[in-house]
């Protein structure tokens, strides 16, 4: 199990109220608890804990605080920004000495960028709250400390924040000695639990809490809790002793390991302490006088305990901090160690230096720790340093050049490169189980995932040993390296992962005799230099022959067992067969047989490839990852990140403030699909629905003068434009073969059927391989064709889709239901668009490096995009609007002021410009250009100021974008406030009806009857009607849209929302993989949602009120489909039926009633006549 599961299991059994909210990497703890609660699992006292999802972590902390005050044992799980939102309550809970443990999977705080990965900046922001801070360094320790913290908080009354490293520990799979209920019972003193009950706020023995105190008393009362903090380290010691007695596992607040007469010591906290121990032991065994200290109890900080642990011989100490406090004398652990030594009188004889490491999950390896010992041994060590990066700007980093393998051969190490979709990680988890359970190995599994949601690459790091493994860092040099997707071999540093003399296994589509020839010169060189044994298998062929389609996981797993011989061959085959039977039993006996078949075939089809002894001439070099025409930054920085070598980039390569160039996704050619849509220009009716639906802007349309076709490459298709608006011009539809994900959405929305053969449509999926070159040349040519003049385009579906998309080739899922809306936004307003983007899917595919999809047009204009946080996005965008408006006002005033200088007629035109149309915008841009020309001739300060601001005389379109988790839950208060204003802000809610980015947790947008995480039995309350709420203001433009049901209404709503002078809210139905169906049918599901009335389409326009018309217009008449039909095709609803049919029917009936009432309400509103304002 991993630490999330281990910790959740303890926390669940020891608590009664659990407040949860999803945040990576802690979400899994809440999810587990919710599932246990839903299936009726009881805690230590025989009751089922209440597990409640709140609207934010702030809400979760508030609920926990309330539960604690009312005498319950309560907990929560969180990380990063979530922990920050809990801060006010942490002070409260601690100030009130309420026993409580919260568990944190430590994660970076967003600063110049967001990072979902590990460091301690979040927990370090809590060190002043009065919570005790207890740090775990491994999975088992995290489990144990979860229990120890609970015992200690009950006995000390000091609340505990228990933390462990996000991903590194929270997600590492390993064997754990599981704490039984009796172990927990032995640790938790029932008298203390009784005290909690007695301390409850209760009308039966009333008291007042949370008073306001004045200068006369606050200070003393605050100091009244001191004795509890003094006693706390002692209490922890007692608890640890009791725990050791019961389990045999000994822990200390500070643990020392290494040479008994160490002179040089490294101090660290979290998983890094394990690496420090291992390195110190390794070096001490070689006679070096070195050691390491692990800090477990960071608050209250027992300075004397620390001093006692340090050997008297210590001369120098390096303290490693996994956080950064810019401007501080040093990072917090360093400062505490310095202060503790000073207070215990040991600082006179000891020099302390401090270093930062591991921010955002940067690796800490034994070589780095060894380098720190080197630094400590240097004549004049650097007092402050950074570790694990190259800082070539402020030169603070320690350069680590050598590798250090602590115990080669003690563990078998294996690395697997695969795709998310091919099941590599699942198979590896299974391998871990087999080797752990059946062959008695100690095991470790760690999985590195991609930043992309489609075509994601996974790298699995597996260790197997006959002794405890430790090693909380990635495998550097593996005994066994497997590449499950041939394409990755030349793209990522796969071969470099292999140890000299190791084994490399390739899944290749080529015949054995051709495999070697298919490798690049560089790869051949690396294989030869490392003297690797090379094996190959056509895993796809084996899987196909066994009837498994493209599921190669069983095949590759069998090869791993065959090549590593970690188990005797027959035994491993039997174990694999049992595993297959177990995992596939529910899928049916034939699936089991197919997999067993695949196991047997795999061994037979595995071949060793002879590695020629000599270099052979003529091997092709590795192709470049980015085209040579890419900008310098992309070549220098992005290309390395794409090649999996971003770690090597020095500090100087980066912008200092998180400002990155946009439009780089076009240089990352990922080639994700084996089939692409092919256009039949004769059949096409030029509706452009395919272009609108494409989530990745990989199918595009243009109109252009036919003369441009003169230089078209062979096979490029075009046809005459069919409308009246571009007479005599040509039309072409082109597909980006390297960017298409093969989702088939375009084919499914294509309405153009061949009358003679209705099976054929104007778009058909075809195998890519034979078409690739033609398609690529055609697409490159297409991109060079001129863009249509914006002012000539009519802003309907067809016209809007002739406009250049400035959101392209994102990493969103194949078939994503959100991105078509964003793309439309950039087509309509991209050249004047500012986007404030809430954290979530749209900020991840919108802004997750290495490449970003927001692009600019030929004039260099394009969407300006920023993400602040999850909770504050409406306010963030609101602030942008205020700034833009201020700039525009200032510019306007300056134009008036300088009217004589720039010319009165130009000034007047600038100030009174019509900018509602594209033509008006073009004219205004020309005027601004004239203005700038005039201003450059002037040298007055006012002219200089206006020159800076002149561009603001052109309207900017401000859009606040986010998902339903933001809009309905965590950001709702801010959204409400912003909608209540009169500012011209537009809000686009990409409504997937769950927290998609964190894996599908319930939001208030989740419809009744849908299964989601935190709603494991199917949600039993109605979806919140955000639109109705916004309508209640009266001045807000509100629309509910679904592009797959009625694209014309979507386009119209976007245009109207932008034109509305006040706040606008567009709620867009976005199909999501969390809904559980093939997203190729996303449009069909949208249609069903609309036709059944589940998703009513409407536009509420305050302008209509002014005209004395009903403000609400219903844009679709429901009733053509039934709610049952809609629910039938999505697994999120069907899972309820599979589990509990009666509940399904009951939820269905309730949904039907909801729908009926909603439609009746809207119908009434759509006939409502209010008196027009005079």
């Amino acid at each position, binding site marked *: 199990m991993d630490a999330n599961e281990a910790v959740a299991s303890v926390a669940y059994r020891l608590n009664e109220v659990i407040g949860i909210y999803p945040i990576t990497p802690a979400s899994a703890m809440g999810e587990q608890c919710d599932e246990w609660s839903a299936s009726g699992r009881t805690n230590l006292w025989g009751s089922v804990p209440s597990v409640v999802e709140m609207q934010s972590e702030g809400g979760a902390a508030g609920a926990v605080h309330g539960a604690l005050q009312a005498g319950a044992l309560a907990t929560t799980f969180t990380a990063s920004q979530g922990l920050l939102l809990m801060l006010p309550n942490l002070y409260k809970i601690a100030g009130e000495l309420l026993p409580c443990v919260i568990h944190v999977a430590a994660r970076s705080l967003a600063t110049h960028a967001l990072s979902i990965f590990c460091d301690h900046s979040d927990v370090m922001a809590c060190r002043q709250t009065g919570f005790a801070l207890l740090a775990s360094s491994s999975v088992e320790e995290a489990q144990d400390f979860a229990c120890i913290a609970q015992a200690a908080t009950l006995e000390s009354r000091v609340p505990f924040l228990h933390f462990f490293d996000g991903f590194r520990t929270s997600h590492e799979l390993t064997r754990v000695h599981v704490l039984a209920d009796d172990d927990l019972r032995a640790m938790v003193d029932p008298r203390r639990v009784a005290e909690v009950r007695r301390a409850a706020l209760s009308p039966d023995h009333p008291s007042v809490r949370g008073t306001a105190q004045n200068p006369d008393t606050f200070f003393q009362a605050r100091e009244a809790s001191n004795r509890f903090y003094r006693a706390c380290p002692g209490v922890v010691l007692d608890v640890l002793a009791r725990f050791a007695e019961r389990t045999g596992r000994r822990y200390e607040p500070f643990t020392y390991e290494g040479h008994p007469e160490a002179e040089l010591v490294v101090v660290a906290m979290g998983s890094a302490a394990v690496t420090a121990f291992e390195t110190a032991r390794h070096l001490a065994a070689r006679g070096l006088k070195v050691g390491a200290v692990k800090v477990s109890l960071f608050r209250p900080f027992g300075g004397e305990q620390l001093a006692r642990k340090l050997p008297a011989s210590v001369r120098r100490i390096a303290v490693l901090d996994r956080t950064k406090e810019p401007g501080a004398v040093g990072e917090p652990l360093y400062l505490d160690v310095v202060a503790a030594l000073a207070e215990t009188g040991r600082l006179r004889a000891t020099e302390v230096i401090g270093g930062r490491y591991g921010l955002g999950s940067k690796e800490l390896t034994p070589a780095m720790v060894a380098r720190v010992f080197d630094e400590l041994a240097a004549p004049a060590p650097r007092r402050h340093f950074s570790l694990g990066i190259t800082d070539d700007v402020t030169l603070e980093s320690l350069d680590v050049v050598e590798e250090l393998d602590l115990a080669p051969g003690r563990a078998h190490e294996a690395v697997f490169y695969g795709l*998310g979709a091919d*099941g590599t990680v699942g198979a590896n988890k299974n391998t871990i189980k087999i080797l752990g359970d059946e062959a008695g190995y100690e095991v470790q599994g760690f999985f590195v995932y*991609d930043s992309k949601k489609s075509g994601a690459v996974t790298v699995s790091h597996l260790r197997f040993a006959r002794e405890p493994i430790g090693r909380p860092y990635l495998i550097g040099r593996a005994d066994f390296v497997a590449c499950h997707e041939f394409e990755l071999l030349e793209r990522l540093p796969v071969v470099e992962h292999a140890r000299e003399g190791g084994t490399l296994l390739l899944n290749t589509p080529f015949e054995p005799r051709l495999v070697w020839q298919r490798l690049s010169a560089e790869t051949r060189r690396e294989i030869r230099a490392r003297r690797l044994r090379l094996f190959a298998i056509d895993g796809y062929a084996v899987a196909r022959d066994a009837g498994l389609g493209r599921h190669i996981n069983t095949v590759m797993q069998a090869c791993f067992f065959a090549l590593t011989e970690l188990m005797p061959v027959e035994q491993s085959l039997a174990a694999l067969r049992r595993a297959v039977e177990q995992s596939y039993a529910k899928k049916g*006996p*034939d699936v089991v047989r197919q997999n067993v078949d695949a196991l047997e075939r795999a061994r037979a089809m595995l071949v060793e490839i002879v590695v020629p002894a000599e270099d052979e001439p003529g091997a092709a070099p590795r192709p470049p990852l980015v085209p040579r025409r890419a900008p310098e930054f992309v070549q220098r920085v992005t290309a390395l990140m794409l090649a999996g070598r971003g770690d090597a980039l020095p500090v100087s390569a980066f912008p200092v403030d998180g400002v990155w160039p946009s439009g780089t996704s076009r240089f990352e050619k990922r080639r994700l699909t084996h089939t692409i849509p092919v256009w039949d220009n004769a059949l096409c009716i030029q509706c452009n629905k395919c272009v609108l639906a494409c989530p990745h802007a990989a199918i595009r349309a243009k109109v252009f003068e036919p003369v441009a076709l003169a230089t078209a490459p062979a096979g490029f298709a075009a046809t005459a434009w069919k409308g009246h608006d571009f007479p005599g011009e040509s039309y072409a539809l082109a597909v980006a073969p390297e960017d298409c994900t093969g989702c088939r959405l375009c084919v499914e929305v294509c309405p153009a059927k061949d009358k003679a053969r*209705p099976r054929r449509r104007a778009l058909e999926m075809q195998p890519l391989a034979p078409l690739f070159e033609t398609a690529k040349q055609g697409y490159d040519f297409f991109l060079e064709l001129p863009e249509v003049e914006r002012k000539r385009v009519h802003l309907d579906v067809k016209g809007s889709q002739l406009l250049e998309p400035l959101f392209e080739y994102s990493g969103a899922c194949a078939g994503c239901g959100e991105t078509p809306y964003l793309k439309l936004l950039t087509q309509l307003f991209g050249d004047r668009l500012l986007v404030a983007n809430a954290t979530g899917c749209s900020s991840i595919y919108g802004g997750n490096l290495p490449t970003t999809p927001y692009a600019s047009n030929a004039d260099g204009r394009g969407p300006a995009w920023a993400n602040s946080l999850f909770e504050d996005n409406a306010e963030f965008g609101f602030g942008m609007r205020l700034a833009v408006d201020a700039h525009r006002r200032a510019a306007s005033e300056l134009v008036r002021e300088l009217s004589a200088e720039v010319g009165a007629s130009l000034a007047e035109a600038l100030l009174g410009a019509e900018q509602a149309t594209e033509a008006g915008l073009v004219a205004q841009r020309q005027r601004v250009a004239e203005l700038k020309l005039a201003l450059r001739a002037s040298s007055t300060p006012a002219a200089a100021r206006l020159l800076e601001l002149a561009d603001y005389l052109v309207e900017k379109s401000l859009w606040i974008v986010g998902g339903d988790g933001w809009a309905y839950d965590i950001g709702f208060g801010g959204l409400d406030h912003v909608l209540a204003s009169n500012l011209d802000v537009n809000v686009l809610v990409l409504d997937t009806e769950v927290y998609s980015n964190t894996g599908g947790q319930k939001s208030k947008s989740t419809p009744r009857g849908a299964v*989601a*995480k935190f709603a*494991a039995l199917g949600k039993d309350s109605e979806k919140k009607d955000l639109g109705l709420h916004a309508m209640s203001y009266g001045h807000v433009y509100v629309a509910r849209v679904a592009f797959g049901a009625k694209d014309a209404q979507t386009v119209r709503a976007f245009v109207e929302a932008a034109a509305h002078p006040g706040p606008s809210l567009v709620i867009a139905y976005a199909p999501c*993989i969390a809904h559980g169906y093939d997203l190729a049918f996303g449009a069909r599901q949208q249609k069903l949602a609309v036709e059944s009335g589940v998703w009513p389409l409407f536009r509420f326009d305050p302008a209509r009120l002014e005209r004395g018309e009903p403000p609400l217009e219903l844009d679709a008449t429901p009733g053509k489909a039934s709610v049952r039909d809609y629910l039938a095709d999505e697994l999120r609803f069907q899972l309820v039926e599979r589990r509990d049919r009666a509940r399904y029917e009951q939820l269905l009936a309730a949904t039907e009633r909801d729908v009926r009432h909603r439609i009746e309400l809207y119908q009434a509103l759509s006939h409502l006549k209010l008196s027009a304002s005079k």
Partner: protein
Amino acid sequence: MDLTTRYLGLTLPHPLVLGASPLVDDLGAVRRAEDLGAAAIVMHSLFEEQISHERHARAELARHEESFAEALYFAPHRAEFHLGPHEYLEQIRRIKDAVAIPIVASLNGTTNTGWLEYAKLIDQAGADALELNAYRVATDPEESGDSVEKTTADMLATVKAQTRLPVAVKLSPYHTSLAHFARRLASAHADGLVLFNRFYQPDLDLEALEVAHRLELSTSADLLLRLRWLAVLSAQVDVSFAVSGGVHSVEDVVKVIMTGADAVQLVSEILQHGLHRFTELRGELERWLEAHEYHSLAQARRSMNLANCPDPKVYERTSYLRILNSWPPPESRAR
């Protein structure tokens, strides 16, 4: 009046059985069926496609798992959720728990492949017998009639190898030599034959240019085809027979018994008029037999099949002409 009958080795108090229908999804309806006198219940089919569909649904979920660090999976309790086939097996268990009458499960598919292994699971789930529904439209010009029959016979053999349950094969009427085929199935150890399958008939949606499927409820007119073949086959092949499709009245029941049915599957009549039709038809059957001075149902069984009827030729070719002659020419009808 003794109405007992033996069907697939099961002794039933009377021949009226609830045929494959959506009613079996509703345990309340199942209990009512027993209370109102159904002698046995036939489950609707577990389809070969349902089994493969289930696999696809799972694959669809799995496709997005373990790919992205923030969302390693999407559906909660995914281990506990059971799709199609599992639910089917569970429903058998639930029905067995709910009622005492025999349950005939049903497998429906066209290929002799792994899905047939579900027969064993159906057996384990507690079904009393199995219907193998060889539902297919032979569209492949390369495939001969013999090969079509062979596939079905092979499927039967596969199923028989999986289970000791009695197995009936549900046939379509569209076989070249039905009598020959029936004998082939009997020698492959079929325990019974069910006459006949009713195909979903394709229709067209002219606006969408799509093919639409529809199934209409049977009428007594559907019975005639079945009467003939019951009469023919029950005289030639020594297995149980059930009729499915077209029985709506007590006369219909008597006719199928006389031509050879051991069990009568009722669906359309029940869906149209309700489960109480079991009680009514049973009473009517008793009264009819009494009124016509039969002392038991057994006396009437197969009395009018090819072997026992007074004029076997009627079931054969000559009856064709006679029926045609019984229709007046169109112009006379117009008048």
